[in-house]
């Protein structure tokens, strides 16, 4: 026992913070089932959830089962997955680009996904096809950014970001074009609402498609997270420390792109989370990616769950998530910034 303590002090340090962060997440997860127009008591939630895990025989009204499992469960899970995915992708990208102002859609993934979705809406397809188009659109945009940047001599991270900016505005223009040609009564509102981000319509089936890529992407990033420390010292220095920087960069870019594209594909473009949650976590746990990445996952999940709960309860007509994340996130972030001066050096 004592030996374990000494052998992995860094992990031990991280573990205690993670446990502290996990408690509010678990509480919020359960609490979120109670929110909504159909009143559900805490006992009901407890009973229904435990009946799914343990083989106990209880009489559950079908409406209750439907509300909890078909409506609230996918939404709560999606909020947690997307929040976690976006913020861990942001934290990784900030390390990769050595820049705390980078968001996970820096290489054009959101714009690409947004155009994919708009195109699918224009074609009049259903939710799953829209999701697929968005995911593929995101991957295509980032692949284009990467391939184009490789054609330049002396490829640096800066070239990559600049290509990302170009690709982002190119797909941004295509989104604008699809809005322009869309039917103003049938398609345009759908596109606009989709782009603003919402978790209202997420189904278990959609969740099933995005959960595996998100979880795999996160696991890979978690496995290489210590190396992101070394990479963030600069490409050349990382190389002299024995890191195959090209390979590591590609792994990070692929993981972050899959995470962001998966997220955008089920709930539209939700800004702010990937940029700000890593900062909030740096204030709590420091700059070491070994602790920062797991912390970003948990805090990201907490943040988006809170935002979605607010979006569900604040008004009768739901406010899109993309709007709420900024309206609530911005003042909160400024407050934190004021409280803690040492965010980055």
């Amino acid at each position, binding site marked *: 026992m004592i030996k374990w303590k*000494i*052998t*992995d*002090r*860094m992990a031990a340090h991280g573990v205690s913070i993670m446990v502290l962060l996990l408690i509010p997440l678990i509480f919020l997860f359960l609490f979120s089932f109670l929110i909504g127009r159909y009143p559900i008591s805490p006992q009901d939630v407890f009973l229904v959830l435990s009946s799914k895990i343990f083989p106990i025989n209880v009489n559950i009204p079908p409406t209750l089962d439907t509300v909890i499992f078909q409506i609230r469960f996918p939404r709560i899970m999606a909020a947690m997955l997307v929040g976690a995915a976006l913020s861990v992708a942001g934290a990784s990208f900030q*390390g990769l680009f*050595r*820049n*705390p102002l980078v968001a996970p859609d820096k290489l054009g993934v959101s714009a690409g996904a947004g155009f994919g979705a708009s195109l699918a809406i224009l074609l009049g397809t259903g939710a799953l096809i829209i999701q697929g188009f968005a995911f593929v659109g995101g991957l295509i945009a980032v692949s284009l950014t990467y391939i184009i940047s490789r054609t330049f001599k002396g490829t640096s991270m800066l070239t990559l970001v600049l290509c990302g900016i170009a690709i982002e505005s190119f797909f941004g223009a295509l989104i604008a074009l699809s809005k322009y040609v869309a039917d103003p009564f049938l398609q345009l509102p759908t596109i606009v609402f989709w782009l603003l981000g919402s978790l209202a319509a997420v189904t278990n089936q959609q969740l099933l498609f995005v959960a595996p890529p998100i979880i795999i992407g996160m696991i890979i990033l978690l*496995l*290489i*997270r*210590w*190396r992101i*420390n*070394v990479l*963030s*010292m*600069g490409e*050349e*220095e*990382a*190389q*002299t*420390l*024995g*890191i*195959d*920087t090209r390979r*590591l960069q590609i792994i990070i870019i692929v993981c972050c792109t899959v995470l962001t594209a998966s997220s955008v594909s089920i709930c539209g473009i939700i800004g702010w989370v990937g940029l700000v949650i890593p900062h909030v976590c*740096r204030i709590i746990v*420091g*700059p*070491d990616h*070994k602790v920062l990445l797991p912390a970003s996952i948990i805090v990201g999940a907490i943040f988006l769950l809170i935002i979605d709960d607010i979006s569900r309860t604040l008004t009768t007509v739901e406010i899109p998530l993309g709007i709420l994340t900024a309206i609530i996130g911005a003042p909160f972030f400024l407050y934190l910034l004021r409280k803690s001066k*040492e965010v*980055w*050096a």
Partner: protein
Amino acid sequence: MSQMMEMIEGSFSFVENYNIFEDINFSVEKGDVFCILGANGTGKTTLIKCLNGLMKLNSGKVLLNNENLYSLSHAEIAKNIGYIPQVHTSTFPFSVLDVALMGRSPHLDLFESPQEKDFKIAEESLKTLNIYHMRDKPYTEISGGEQQLVFIARVLTQEPSFLLLDEPTSHLDFGNQIRTLDIIEKLAKDGLSVVMSSHFPDHAFMSANKVAIMKEGNFIDVGTPEEVITEENMERTYGIKVKIVDMGDRRACVPLKIK
């Protein structure tokens, strides 16, 4: 195993038909401190970067213990060769211990993180350099001299047999310059082979046992500091007059005023 680094007929160019340096030959063995002197822009940094694969020679070769350097992976090179760059721009305020710990990366696999053994090695390096007490401080908030020690600690944690230093004293105050040279000398005594570039002929007198002067892409002279750092050579290299003074235990190179 013999410990030797050689450059054989090394040439490098960024653009065709214009060599930064050409036909450079030298070798460094265990315990050597090889100091490269030369004016600004003569290619000292490029030459050093060719010694650990950050840049590649256009012709000629670098041999690391008789093996072609460029056929080795980044990790294999980093296990043998440590490097301290001339400038470092920081982004995140990692702790001093975390920075030293990064020296372990060539010894760890892609999915591995540092274990207790790695922490021990990093802490040992901090102790060697007397900076263990600041292990939890952000390395961005300590002085330039202390930062240089942190980077030396990181290199020691890497446990290489060769050490490349690109102008290790250029950003340091007078006292820290001399202290850094003292550390370099001690490391060489412990068996490291050091290649460094410098702007100060005096520093070569103090710490090096081999000196080369680089000018217009060539070594115009190679040998012991006493052989190479002469009044004629210094005038040829830097275009100023100097006086070489014998101080008993060592020589010194004193610049004279330009008339």
